[in-house]
C-alpha cells in the first residue's frame, strides 16, 4: 500500500531546491499541484505517525511476547529468554527498536504473528481482500444511496418523505451493529434460510483463482458466473448489516448539509436567474454541500472499519476485522501492529484522495 502511494505521487515539476522562490512560484502558478503536493506531505507525516503510534502502543502493552512465544518451560530458562530477546531485538534501546522496525516495514516485513505462526504480511494479504470486498461494496452502495436519499429528504424538507427518512435513519444509527447482525443471522439465515449465514463461499465451491483476492472480482475474471453468484449471495447479509448504520448516518449528514446549502443566498440568486429546478439542485445546491459531504467520507471509512470488526465476527467473514479481533484477544503484538498500519494507511490514502477531489471541486482550499 505504501509503495502504491509513492507511485501515485502526482506529476509535478521536481523541486530542485526548496528555496522560497520555488514554493512561491508553485503556489502562484500551479496552486492545484502545490496543494496536492502539500496534502501528500501531510499524508506521509500521518503514515509516519501511525507507525509511531502502533509501535508505542505495542510497547505499552504489559504483555511479555517472549514468554508467550517460548511457552512456560523455556520461559523459566534465562538463557533461552535472552536468546529470544536478542532474536526479537528486545535487548536494544527503544529508539533503535523503532528504527529497525521502520527498516523492516519499508521492506514489507511486519514480523511474524505468534497467533498464526505466519508472517503478518502474508496474513494481511489473505484477509485484506476479504474486507476490501465487503467494505468496498458497502462504501460504494452507501455513498450512492446516502447522497441520493439525503438529497431527496432535504429537497422535500418537512414533507412525508423527509419525516420517513428521518425516522428510518434515526433508527438505523440506533441499532447496535452486532445485534442487527445476530438478528439477521437468526431470522434470515437460521429460520428462513434466505441467505447463507457464514463464510464467503459455500463450502462445496472452491474459490476462484486468486488475482485480487476478492472472490466476486476474481470469479468475473475467471468467467465463473456460478461462483460469482454464490459470492454475491454470501455478501448480502454482512453488507446489509454493515451498511445500515453507515448509510443512515451518511443520509442524515447529507440531508443537513444540503439543507444548509439550500438556505444560502446563492441558491436564491440561482433561482432568481430563472434556472429550472434540476439545474439549481445539481449545479448550485449539491455543489455547495459537496465539500462537507466529501470530508465525511473519511468518517464513513472509520465507521466501516468499526462495523467490520463486529460484522465479520458474526458472519465468520475471514477478513481484517476478524483478524484484528483475534490478534487483539491473543495480544499478538505483531498482528495488531500490522492491522493498525494497514488500516491507518488505507484511511490516510482515502483522505488523501478526498482532499484531492476537494481541491478540484473547491478552488478556495488551494489558496489557503
Amino acid at each position, binding site marked *: 500500500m505504501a509503495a502504491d502511494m509513492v507511485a501515485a505521487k502526482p506529476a509535478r515539476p521536481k523541486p530542485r531546491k526548496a528555496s522560497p522562490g520555488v514554493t512561491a512560484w508553485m503556489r502562484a502558478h500551479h496552486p492545484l499541484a502545490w496543494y496536492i503536493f502539500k496534502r501528500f506531505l501531510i499524508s506521509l507525516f500521518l503514515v509516519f505517525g501511525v507507525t509511531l503510534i502502533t509501535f508505542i502502543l505495542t510497547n505499552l502493552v504489559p504483555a511479555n511476547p517472549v514468554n508467550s512465544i517460548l511457552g512456560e518451560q523455556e520461559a523459566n530458562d534465562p538463557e533461552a529468554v535472552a536468546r529470544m530477546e536478542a532474536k526479537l531485538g528486545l535487548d536494544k534501546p527503544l529508539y533503535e527498536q523503532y528504527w529497525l522496525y521502520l527498516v523492516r516495514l519499508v521492506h514489507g516485513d511486519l514480523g511474524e504473528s505468534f497467533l498464526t505462526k505466519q508472517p503478518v504480511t502474508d496474513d494481511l494479504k489473505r484477509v485484506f481482500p476479504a474486507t476490501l470486498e465487503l467494505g468496498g461494496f458497502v462504501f460504494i452502495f452507501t455513498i450512492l444511496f446516502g447522497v441520493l436519499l439525503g438529497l431527496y429528504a432535504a429537497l422535500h424538507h418537512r414533507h412525508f418523505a423527509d419525516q420517513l427518512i428521518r425516522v428510518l435513519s434515526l433508527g438505523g444509527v440506533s441499532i447496535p451493529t452486532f445485534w442487527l447482525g445476530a438478528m439477521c443471522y437468526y431470522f434470515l439465515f437460521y429460520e428462513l434460510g434466505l441467505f447463507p449465514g457464514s463464510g464467503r463461499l459455500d463450502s462445496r465451491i472452491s474459490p476462484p483463482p486468486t488475482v485480487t483476492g476478492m472472490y466476486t472480482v476474481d470469479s468475473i475474471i475467471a468467467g465463473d458466473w456460478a461462483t460469482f453468484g454464490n459470492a454475491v449471495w454470501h455478501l448480502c447479509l454482512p453488507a446489509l448489516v454493515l451498511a445500515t448504520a453507515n448509510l443512515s448516518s451518511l443520509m442524515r449528514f447529507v440531508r443537513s448539509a444540503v439543507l444548509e446549502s439550500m438556505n444560502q443566498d*446563492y441558491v436564491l440568486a440561482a433561482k*432568481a*436567474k430563472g*434556472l429550472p429546478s434540476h*439545474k439549481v439542485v445539481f449545479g448550485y445546491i449539491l*455543489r455547495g454541500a459537496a465539500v462537507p459531504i466529501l470530508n465525511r467520507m473519511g468518517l464513513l471509512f472509520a465507521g466501516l472499519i468499526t462495523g467490520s470488526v463486529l460484522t465479520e465476527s458474526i458472519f465468520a467473514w475471514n477478513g481484517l476485522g476478524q483478524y484484528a479481533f483475534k490478534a487483539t484477544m491473543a495480544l499478538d503484538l505483531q498482528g495488531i501492529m500490522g492491522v493498525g498500519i494497514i488500516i491507518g494507511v488505507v484511511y490516510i490514502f482515502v483522505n488523501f484522495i478526498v482532499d484531492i477531489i476537494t481541491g478540484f471541486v473547491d478552488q478556495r482550499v488551494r489558496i489557503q
Partner: protein
Amino acid sequence: MSDMSAQESELFKNQGKPVGITVRGLTMDLYGRRLLDHVDLDIAPGKINGLAGESGSGKSLTSMTVLGLPPEGAKITGSILYDGKTELLGMKERERNTYRGRRISMVFQDPTSSMHPMLSIERQLTDGMRYHLHLNRKQARKRAIELLKLVQVPDPENALDRFPHQFSGGQLQRIAIATALSCDSRVLIADEPTTALDVTVQAGILHLLKDLNEQLGLTIVLVTHDLGVMSALADTIAVMRSGKIVEVGPRYDIINHPKHPYTIDLINSLPTRIEQRLESEGKTMASAEEDL
C-alpha cells in the same frame, strides 16, 4: 461609461420600449400571519422606483413576490401585471421561469453570499443566458465579456476565469448586476444593493444603476431602508410599513413634504436630519449620545 453606447447597441439591440409592472391588492398570508396587506404599487417604466421601509416592513417580500420567489407555503391574492397585460400571479412555474431572470431580474444585498463560492464567474454569469437565450459556451462567453465591460469590471477576459473570493465586494456587485442584465431583462429589482458594501464603493454602484437606467431605459426597483440612497437616486418613492404601503409620491414630495407620520419619522432619522434637529435644540451629537 464613455464607450458604453457602442456596447449597448450591440448588446441590447433587440429590446423595445421600457416596461413597467403594476401591483394591485397584493396580499400574502403565511402561517396565519398577514405579511402583505393590499399592496398597490406602480413600477413605472424606465424610472427608478424606490421602495422604502424598515426591515420586516414587507418591502423585500413584495419585491421577491414580483420576481416570482415568494416564501414557500404563502397564500397570495391580488394581481401583478407585467407591461400592463401579462398576469404574473398564478402563472405556471414553467412559464414563470421565462419571466424570472429573463424579463425581471434581481440584484441581492450581499454579493459575497449571493455568488456561489465554488463556481467560476463565467459559470455564474453565463448560466442564465445559456438556458434562456440558448447560447453555446463560446457565444455566452463573448456576451459575458461585453456585459462585464458594460458594468466596468476591469480585465473581463481574466475575470471570467476567476472565483468570487478573488474579487472585492464592489466588483462582485458589478458582476451580479451584469448577471442580472445578461438575458435582456427589462426590470431590475435591486434589494439593498449597496448596504453590504464599503461606503467608498457605494457611490460607484449607484452611479452604475443610474447610468443603466438612463442609457438602456431599464426599469429599476430600488429597495432600501436607506433614505439617503433613495433621495439620491429614486424618481418616485413608496414607503412601506407592516406590509402596507403608507405613502407614495415623487421623490421631492416624499423627502421634503412627507405627510404620513411614519414617513416623517423615517426622514427625521436620517443622519443629516438628526444633526439639524439637534442644532435647533441647541445640542451636539456628543451630548446626545450621552443621553442615550
